C-alpha cells in the first residue's frame, strides 16, 4: 500500500511538471543592427517607376539652428525621453530591425491571413471576393500566390523608389540625427551617420501603408496602427524629430501613389477573366493537349486567375515572355508521360516520412504566406544577416519581388497556354492539397528557381545553398503528388531565365553590384 502511494506521488509530480510547462511559443525575431555600409550614393540608383530620384520634391528642412528644430530637440530630450513606456520600448525594439524588413513581414502575414479560397454557396457557385466589401464572405482578397507575388512586388518597388529618393534628399540636405545635433540626447537604437531628413522609417511606413491598404483594403485599422507605431518608434528612440517624420511620410505617400497608378493599369483587373478559358482550352487542344485540365474540386471551381499571364512584367517585355515560354510537355499517353505518372504512383504507395516532410515544409498552400512570400522571408533574413542598410534591403527585396511577380506571370502564361491536366485526373491523391489550376509548369519550381537565381547574384556566398533549396522545392511538388517531374524541371529552367533578366536589371541600377 505504501509502495502504491509512492508510485502515485511520483506520477503526481510528473503530472504537475507537464501541466505547468510553458506553452508560450518563442518566435525568432530580428533585432537592430548597425549596417555594414550606409550606401551613401543610393540617391543615384535607378528607380522602377519614378523617372529619377528628384521627381518627387521634398521641402527644405529648417536649419538645425532654427528655433523650431531646437524646440523639437528639446521635446525629444525633455518631454518624450522621460515618458518612453515599456510598450514604447517594445515597439522600438520591433521596428529597430528595420522598417523594410518589418513591413515585408506584415505583408506576408496579411497574405497568410487572406490566403483562403472562397467557399461555394448554396447554388454551387464560388462568389468572387469584392474589393469594395473586403470583410464580407468571401473576404477580399484571396491572397493566392499570384496575388501575393504582385502585392509584394508593388510593396517592395514603392519602398525602394521612395527610399532611394529619400537617400537623395538626405545627402542633399544633410541634416544630422537629433543625437548628433544635441549630444545630450540618448538614442535608443544604434546611432548612425545617416542624415535624418527625411526619416527613412517614415518613408518606408508611408509607402508600405499606401500599397497595403490598396492590396488588403479590409485591414485599414490594423495598418493605421502599424503606420503610427512605425513612425512614433523613430521619435521615441530619438532617431528622428517629428519634422523628419512628416517629410518622410509625405514622400513615402507621394511615391507610393505613383507606384499604385501603375498597378491599377497593369492588367490585374482582367486577370480573373473566366470568359477566356473556353478559348484557352480550344487553343491548347490545337497545340496537341488532348486531356485539358479540369478542376478537381466539387463543385467545379473556376481556375485561379486564368489571365494573370497577361499582367505586365517588370524585368522583361511581352516578346521576351513569349520567347522564354517552355515548350509543350509530354502529352498524355506518351511513354515519357507514363514514366512521370508511374513515378507518382510509386511515391503514393511508398511515400517516406522524409518525402512527406519536404512536401509539407515547402507546401506553402492555403493559409500560408505563399511560395513567393517564403522567398521574401528567406531574402529578408539574408539581408539582416548581411547587415544591409535600409536602402540595400529595399533594393534586394525589390529585385526579388519583381522577379517573383515576373515568375508568376510567366508561369501562369505557360499554365494557361498549355492547360495540362493534374496527376489527380489520373487517380492520384495528394498529401498536401491540390492547387486549382493547370499543371504545367510548376509555380513552385518557377518561383523558386527565379528567386534562387536573383538571390544567388545578391548573396553570392549563398548561391549554392539557394539552388539547393530550389531543387528541394522542385522535388517537394513531386513528393506531394501534385506535379509531374517534367512540370518541375521545365519550370526550373524557366525560372532561371526569369532570374537572369532580373540580374541584368540589378547590374545596371547604379548600385555598383
Amino acid at each position, binding site marked *: 500500500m505504501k509502495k502504491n502511494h509512492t508510485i502515485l506521488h511520483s506520477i503526481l509530480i510528473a503530472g504537475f511538471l507537464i*501541466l505547468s510547462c510553458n506553452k508560450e511559443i518563442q*518566435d525568432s525575431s530580428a533585432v537592430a543592427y548597425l549596417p555594414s555600409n550606409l550606401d551613401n550614393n543610393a540617391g543615384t540608383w535607378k528607380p522602377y517607376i519614378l523617372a529619377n530620384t528628384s521627381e518627387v520634391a521634398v521641402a527644405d528642412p529648417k536649419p538645425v539652428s532654427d528655433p523650431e528644430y531646437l524646440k523639437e530637440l528639446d521635446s525629444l530630450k525633455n518631454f518624450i525621453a522621460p515618458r518612453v513606456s515599456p510598450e514604447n520600448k517594445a515597439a522600438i525594439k520591433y521596428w529597430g530591425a528595420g522598417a523594410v524588413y518589418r513591413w515585408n513581414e506584415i505583408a506576408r502575414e496579411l497574405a497568410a491571413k487572406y490566403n483562403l479560397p472562397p*467557399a461555394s454557396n448554396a447554388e454551387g457557385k464560388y462568389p468572387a471576393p469584392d474589393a469594395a466589401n473586403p470583410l464580407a464572405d468571401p473576404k477580399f482578397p484571396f491572397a493566392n500566390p499570384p496575388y501575393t507575388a504582385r502585392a509584394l512586388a508593388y510593396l517592395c518597388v514603392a519602398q525602394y523608389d521612395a527610399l532611394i529618393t529619400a537617400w537623395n534628399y538626405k545627402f542633399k540636405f544633410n541634416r544630422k540625427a537629433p543625437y548628433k545635433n544635441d549630444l545630450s540626447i540618448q538614442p535608443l537604437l544604434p546611432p548612425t551617420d545617416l542624415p535624418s531628413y527625411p526619416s527613412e522609417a517614415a518613408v518606408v511606413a508611408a509607402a508600405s501603408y499606401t500599397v497595403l491598404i490598396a492590396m488588403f483594403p479590409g485591414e485599414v485599422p490594423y495598418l493605421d496602427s502599424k503606420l503610427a507605431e512605425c513612425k512614433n518608434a523613430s521619435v521615441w528612440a530619438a532617431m528622428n524629430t517629428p519634422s523628419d517624420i512628416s517629410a518622410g511620410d509625405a514622400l513615402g505617400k507621394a511615391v507610393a501613389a505613383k507606384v499604385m497608378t501603375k498597378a491599377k493599369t497593369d492588367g490585374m483587373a482582367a486577370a480573373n477573366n473566366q470568359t477566356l478559358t473556353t478559348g484557352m482550352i480550344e487553343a491548347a487542344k490545337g497545340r496537341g493537349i488532348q486531356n485539358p485540365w479540369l478542376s478537381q474540386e*466539387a463543385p467545379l471551381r473556376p481556375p485561379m486567375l486564368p489571365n494573370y499571364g497577361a499582367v505586365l512584367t517588370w524585368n522583361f517585355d511581352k516578346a521576351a515572355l513569349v520567347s522564354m515560354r517552355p515548350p509543350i510537355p509530354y502529352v498524355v499517353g506518351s511513354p515519357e508521360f507514363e514514366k512521370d505518372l508511374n513515378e507518382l504512383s510509386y511515391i503514393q504507395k511508398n511515400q517516406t*516520412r522524409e518525402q*512527406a516532410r519536404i512536401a*509539407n515544409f515547402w507546401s506553402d498552400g492555403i493559409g500560408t504566406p505563399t511560395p513567393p512570400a517564403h522567398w521574401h522571408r528567406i531574402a529578408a533574413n539574408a539581408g539582416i544577416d548581411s547587415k544591409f542598410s535600409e536602402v540595400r534591403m529595399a533594393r534586394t527585396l525589390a529585385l526579388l519581388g519583381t522577379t517573383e511577380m515576373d515568375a508568376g506571370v510567366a508561369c501562369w502564361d505557360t499554365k494557361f497556354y498549355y492547360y495540362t491536366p493534374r496527376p489527380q485526373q489520373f487517380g*492520384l*491523391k495528394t*498529401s498536401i492539397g491540390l492547387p486549382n489550376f493547370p499543371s504545367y509548369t510548376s509555380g513552385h519550381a518557377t518561383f523558386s528557381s527565379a528567386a534562387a537565381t536573383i538571390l544567388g547574384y545578391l548573396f553570392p556566398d549563398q548561391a549554392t545553398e539557394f539552388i539547393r533549396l530550389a531543387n528541394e522545392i522542385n522535388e517537394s511538388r513531386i513528393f506531394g503528388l501534385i506535379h509531374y517531374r517534367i512540370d518541375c524541371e521545365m519550370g526550373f529552367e524557366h525560372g532561371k531565365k526569369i532570374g537572369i533578366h532580373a540580374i541584368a536589371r540589378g547590374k545596371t541600377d547604379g548600385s555598383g553590384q
Partner: protein
Amino acid sequence: MSRYYLPLFLMMGMLIGLQNSVPAQMPNDAIYMNKNTICVMAAYGQNSWDEYWENTLKRENLNIGTNTTQMYMVMVAAGITDKLNLLAGLPYVQTKNSAGNLLGQKGLQDLSATLKYKFFENHGLSLHGALGGSIPMSNYIPDFLPMSIGIGSTTLTGRIIANYKHHSGIYITLHGGYTGRNNINIDRDTYQAYDRVYNTSEVAIPNTADGGINLGYLKNGIQATLFMEKFDCIGGDAIRRNDMPFPTNNMVSNNVGAFLKYQPSHFGINGRIAYVTSGQNVGQALSFMAGILYQFSIKGESVGVSN
C-alpha cells in the same frame, strides 16, 4: 477545402474512443480489476462524419465527402491491487475520405496509460482519482487535418470520479478530467494560428477539459451504460472560413452514447456507440467500437471486477 476532425479523433480517441472502451473498465468509471487480474482486449473501432462545424457554422464538404477513421486497438487493464488499476492502450489508425483527393494516413498512434485509484468507499458511494498520459508512438504528420491520425502531443490527464452503486446493480457515475497537452512540432517552420503568423515549427496546443455522467447496470457479468460527455479545449482558435482545421483549434463536442459488455467467464465481448450532438471545430461523428476480452488471473486469485 476543409479537413477536420482528427484532432477530434485524437482528443476523443484518447478521451472517448480509447479510454472509455478499455475492457471492463475505463479511466472515467468506478470499475476495478481485482488484484493480480488482467484483462486484455482486442477491438475494432470506427468513426465517421460527413458534416462538421467550421467554428460554429455547420457544413458539409464535397471535397471530403465522408471522413472515416478506423482504429485497431489493443488494450490492457491490470489489477495491481483491488484499489489500484493500470489501464493501457495502443491503437493503429487509418483515415480516408470518400471524396476529394486528400491522401489517407495510417500508422501507430499514441500509447496511453492510466493509473486509477479508489480513495474512498462507503455504502455504495465511492470516490476515485485517475492519472494518465499518452505519448505518440510514431512520427506521424500532426497537421494534415482531417487526415492526420493524431495531433502528436504528449498528454497528461488528471481525473476525479464519483460513483454510487445500488445493490440492485444500478449505478451512476460522475467524472471530470483535465488534460495538459504539450506543444508539438510540425514539418513547417511557419504557420498561421490565433490570427497571426508564427515563424517557428513549434505549435501550442490547447489543454482540454471533459466531464460526463454514466447511468448503468452492472451485475452478473453484464454491464449496460448510457452516457453523456462534454469535451472542451481551454482556449484555442477557430477554423477560419473555408480553411483547413489545425491542431490549435478550440475543439468542443457534446456526446451521447451507450456501452454494453457481456463477460460470463474468461472471455467476453463489449461494444460502444457514440454520437456528437453538438460541437465546434469538430466533425459530427458517429462512432462505434466492438471488442473481444480475455480476462485471467496471474496468481490464481478469483477472476472478476468490482464496482
